[in-house]
């Protein structure tokens, strides 16, 4: 039987209270949101916090809003809520695509958007999706609020720029005319990605004016393929350019071999899924469902 080691438990009643509790319990305290990354790690003793601060009561973090031309997703929005959101589906199909393939419906009822990002697991699908979208994150700590571009949020596997007593409040993405898609290969339904790619394309006059390419589970620095993004800008959104962007993305990522596959297979997937995501985004830009 897997049971976590003992810990103290406290429920936060608001953002400020959560920060106060984190400060009071010190560096060995951890926030718990959906608990679907943290509790499995605690059962395996991969994490052993001395105190858990439960933020499930923070209703102010459970909203999906459109605010000043931006989509704002609260950190405590569950995966299921993001998947069901009409505004997300309309403007950010990359997020809807990703959510359809994250875990399974039961896990999605509990796991949160904020937990996904703060876990900074290299295989977390939303990290690559939000990085492709160039989202910004709003966090609050003892010293007040700050805004962090998501591409500067991840320091490495399981590590973010958040301070010990800092809380992620929401993710913000500008609502624009871009088209987007997410493509993932998994070993079986509901599994973590072997590899996955997010593509965001801003098109104007038959030319790519801005490109976002996110990569999941293949060791891409900050979850993005920056060289491939640069390559795409200024050219037409056609098959030839997508193939080359895929090749570049496959080369610039740094996958490691594990039970999900060897390095060359993952590079191949990164390249191929980049192409497929770009193709799907381009089709959507022309009003075709992909």
């Amino acid at each position, binding site marked *: *039987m*897997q*049971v*976590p*080691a*003992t*810990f*103290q*438990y406290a*429920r936060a009643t608001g953002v400020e209270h959560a920060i106060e509790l984190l400060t009071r319990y010190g560096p060995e305290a951890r926030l*718990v949101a959906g*608990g*679907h990354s943290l*509790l*499995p790690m605690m*059962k395996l003793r991969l994490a052993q916090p001395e105190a*858990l601060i*439960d933020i*499930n009561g923070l209703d102010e973090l459970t909203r999906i809003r459109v605010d000043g031309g931006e989509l704002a997703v609260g950190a405590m929005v569950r995966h*299921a809520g993001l998947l069901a959101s009409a505004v997300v589906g309309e403007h950010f199909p990359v997020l809807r695509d990703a959510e359809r393939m994250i*875990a*399974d*419906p*039961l*896990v999605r*009822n*509990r796991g949160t958007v904020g937990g996904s990002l703060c876990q900074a697991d290299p295989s977390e699908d939303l990290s690559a999706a939000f990085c492709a979208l160039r989202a910004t994150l709003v966090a609050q700590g003892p010293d007040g609020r700050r805004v962090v571009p998501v591409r500067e949020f991840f320091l490495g596997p399981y590590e973010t720029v958040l301070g010990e007593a800092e809380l992620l409040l929401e993710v913000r993405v500008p609502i624009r005319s871009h088209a987007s898609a997410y493509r993932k290969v998994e070993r079986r*339904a*509901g599994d973590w990605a072997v590899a996955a790619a997010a593509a965001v394309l801003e098109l104007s006059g038959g030319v790519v004016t801005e490109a976002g390419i996110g990569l999941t589970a293949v060791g891409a620095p900050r979850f993005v393929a920056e060289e491939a993004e640069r390559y795409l800008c200024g050219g037409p959104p056609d098959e030839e350019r997508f193939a080359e962007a895929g090749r570049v993305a496959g080369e610039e990522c740094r996958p490691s071999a594990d039970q999900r596959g060897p390095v060359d297979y993952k590079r191949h997937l990164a390249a191929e899924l980049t192409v497929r995501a770009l193709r799907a985004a381009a089709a959507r830009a022309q009003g075709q469902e992909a």
Partner: protein
Amino acid sequence: MQITVTVNGERYTRGVEPRLLLVHFLRDDLGLTGTHWGCDTSNCGVCAVWLDGAPVKSCTVLAVMADGHEVRTVEGLAHGAELDPVQQGFVACHGLQCGFCTPGMMMTARWLLDHDPDPSEEDIREAVSGQLCRCTGYENIVRSIRWAAEHGGAARPAEEDAGREEVRT
């Protein structure tokens, strides 16, 4: 810690350790052993119960997190002596063999039919995709849930007693 959890409409107050998982609280502290416990790793879904109206894996929720919240387990599916249409469907279509996965499957099925009274086979397979069955090959589980949909399974229980009359077969 003292917690109060409403399970199947009844309030239970117990003293628990913060590290106690909801599945063990239900089974060991409340004696509600209908909820099964399998993989321990959030993968198999045999531990599925409703938490505030939606199915979750109770091996990945702390009992203290359910303090003040509502849980529904397989023991809360039937209405007195009358089985829920989902339960009837599993009987009618041989939806189980060993029965280990069945309580979790039925809780998710009940939730699905409450939200989509006429799910396609694909919808059903997606709904139970986080739950493993080592016996049936899923075919008969899908049939059982379809059976429930076709036999008044969409009717919300309790409030719709009149509607439920037609379900009896």
